[in-house]
């Protein structure tokens, strides 16, 4: 506990009221007849890191996948309630889901670089969205994205080599660079460090902290230390309900909800 407390004191100084980027109201998700989320109402502030924590199967990843409609790709899933991005309902039939996903990017649990070169991996998004007019501009986007993801110096001499040849941590940063390259407004991260070793995890966490300057970040994590280290807002999920949400500092020092208290002190999870 002391350890977490120390981290909190360092990380939370910048906490201040920010405008709301995404709003969810009473979001429910059913997989077939099974209800996975029972009405989540949660605000996600702009240019902050919001961490979703909770025991396995509590619905935090399901909620995350609602935010860019990745649940659409699962046949049996049906989403209810309302989610807005800058005030626009993202489940409105008039919304183009492809455009939405360009605005709300996603980084997955397991690094999933495409079986292409490092360069092509990053250039993939800009190419399909037509973000560059010529090769120089595309090069520029790729280089900047790799720099922002803190990977450029490690790979600048081998951009033509397959992205699958990198180490796990590098692959995950490549996936982050790939997401950054389409200049999204929000980046969703689904346990981005769970497949990485501690050193790679530290690098990715530092990166997340830096990305906060330009992007709104929502991260699902199993590690409470990680939530404490990288996030400003923490939301605790439990069995498909939102147990509690609040500034990370408060959540870890003085939670209101009994379930949060039990979870962060390791009584279950």
């Amino acid at each position, binding site marked *: 506990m002391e350890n977490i407390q120390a981290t909190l004191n360092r990380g939370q100084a910048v906490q201040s009221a920010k405008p709301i980027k995404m709003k969810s109201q009473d979001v429910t998700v059913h997989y077939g007849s099974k209800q996975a989320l029972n009405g989540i109402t949660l605000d996600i502030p702009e240019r902050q890191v919001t961490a979703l924590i909770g025991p396995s199967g509590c619905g935090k990843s399901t909620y995350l996948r609602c935010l860019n409609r990745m649940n659409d790709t699962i046949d049996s899933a049906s989403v209810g309630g309302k989610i807005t991005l800058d005030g626009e309902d993202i489940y409105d039939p008039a919304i183009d889901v492809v455009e939405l996903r360009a605005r709300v990017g996603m980084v997955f649990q397991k690094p999933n670089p495409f079986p292409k070169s490092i360069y092509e991996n990053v250039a993939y998004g800009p190419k*399909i969205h037509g973000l560059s007019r010529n090769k120089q501009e595309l090069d520029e986007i790729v280089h900047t994205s790799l720099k922002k993801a803190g990977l450029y110096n490690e790979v600048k001499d081998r951009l033509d080599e397959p992205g699958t040849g990198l180490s796990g941590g590098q692959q995950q940063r490549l996936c982050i660079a790939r997401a950054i390259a389409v200049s999204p407004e929000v980046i969703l991260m689904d346990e981005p460090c769970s497949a990485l070793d501690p050193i790679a995890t530290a690098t990715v966490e530092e990166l997340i902290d830096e990305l906060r300057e330009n992007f709104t970040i929502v991260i699902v994590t199993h590690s409470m230390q990680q939530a404490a280290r990288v996030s400003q807002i923490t939301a605790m999920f439990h069995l498909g309900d939102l147990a509690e949400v609040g500034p990370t500092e408060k959540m870890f020092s003085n939670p209101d909800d009994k379930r949060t208290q039990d979870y962060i002190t390791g009584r279950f999870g």
Partner: protein
Amino acid sequence: MSTLTIIFLVLVIGLAGAFLAYRYSRSLAAKDGAQLHSRPIYHASYVACWAMIPALLALMVWLVVSPIVIASDVRGSFPEGILAETSLTEDLAYGIVESLGSGLRVLPADERETITDATPVAELRELLNQRGVPIASASADWMVPLAIQLNGMQIFSRWAMTAVVVLLALGGAFWGYRNIAPRLRARNGVERVVTGALIAASSIAIMTTVGIVFSMLFETIDFFSRISPMEFFFGTEWNPRFSGAGSEGSAGSFGFIPLLAGTLYIGFVAMLIAVPIGLFAAIYMAEYADSRTRSVVKPLLEVLAGIPTIVYGFFALVTVGPFLRDLSAQISGLVTGDYTSFIQAQSVLTAGLVMAIMLIPFVSSLSDDIITSVPRSLRDGSLGLGATRSETIKRVILPAALPGIVSALLLTASRAIGETMIVVLAAGVAANLTINPFDAMTTITVKIVAQLTGDLEFNSPQTLVAFALGMTLFVITLCLNIYALYIVRKYKEQYE
């Protein structure tokens, strides 16, 4: 004792040994409460393996070797120079001796007693004919003693074999049983036997392939000693006149090019139609169809694969061919006013079209499996970046699935090249060399069938050419498959 009885006996010994071993092993565990290395069932299998495997191996070897030994012995005692006097070959003579010998075993004991070395062959032949065993009229008196000798050797060999096999089974069972001890590693031993059995099963497939190649190889060499390879591989005329009796020397021409061209052309047309349709069907089933549609469409498509190719042939002959012919007549009538059809009823196009219908389920089913096996995470990654489904398929999934798809397509191509029945009925048997897809052409496989059907002798170039054709076809498909492997490997090194 028949071979089946011997095998049955060995099985009984093995099972009995296993049963005893099981009981003994249980008692070992119970008696001193010792920790057994292997469970009793493994001890039982261990004893059964020892009882059955050496015995059955010995049986197999004996069955293969003894006829060879007996034959060489009997042939060695053919009277000197006798074959030169008659028109018999050595093989034929041995065949007669053999059937005399096996005839002897049919006779009842009292009649067999009357046959001696001095019995004239005519008398024996009469006797056997009454029992329903026909003997060639070329048989001669000198064969009778040999037949008796052969019969004796065979009977002896069978008795000896029975004795050896049963003794081996008993000995093996005893040896295995004696070895049973608490610390005996029976489990590991049984594991080794299982490994061996699996290796044997896979080598049978390889050995068969090698056997097939060799059986064709010698005939092919024989063919090329009569017709020069240059003429075969580069000749542009296929006309292997069937030489009637006495018309020696009119061998005809064996140009292979028209057949190869026909094979490749028809296969090409078929692939040209089947690949896009099959691939698109696969993409639809793997990426777009919901599970209910998929569960209906996929089996329906695969029904096509179950239709015998001769039925496709009918379809081509009765429906597609005439339809194309009439269609072409209408078209030319509309354009030029002259209602002559420019597509023949039997044509490359007809065969290619119908073969394509046959190939679609192969392409779609194989590609569907390959596309579905691309990890879901790659799809999510691409969709999560705001790519549409078709962009995801075109830029991520198909490139990732490419090596698999290429090898599936080459597999399909091998099938197209080997197809016979559709071509016979849809494209005809005329070996033309043309680039007009509306003309009749024919393929290698059709000509192999044509050369081997009918009443022919097996030592003329007209029939031997079938082996050369078969060998060439084998080499072509082999090259295709090797190329497929090469592609898959190259791609894998690059990306994984």
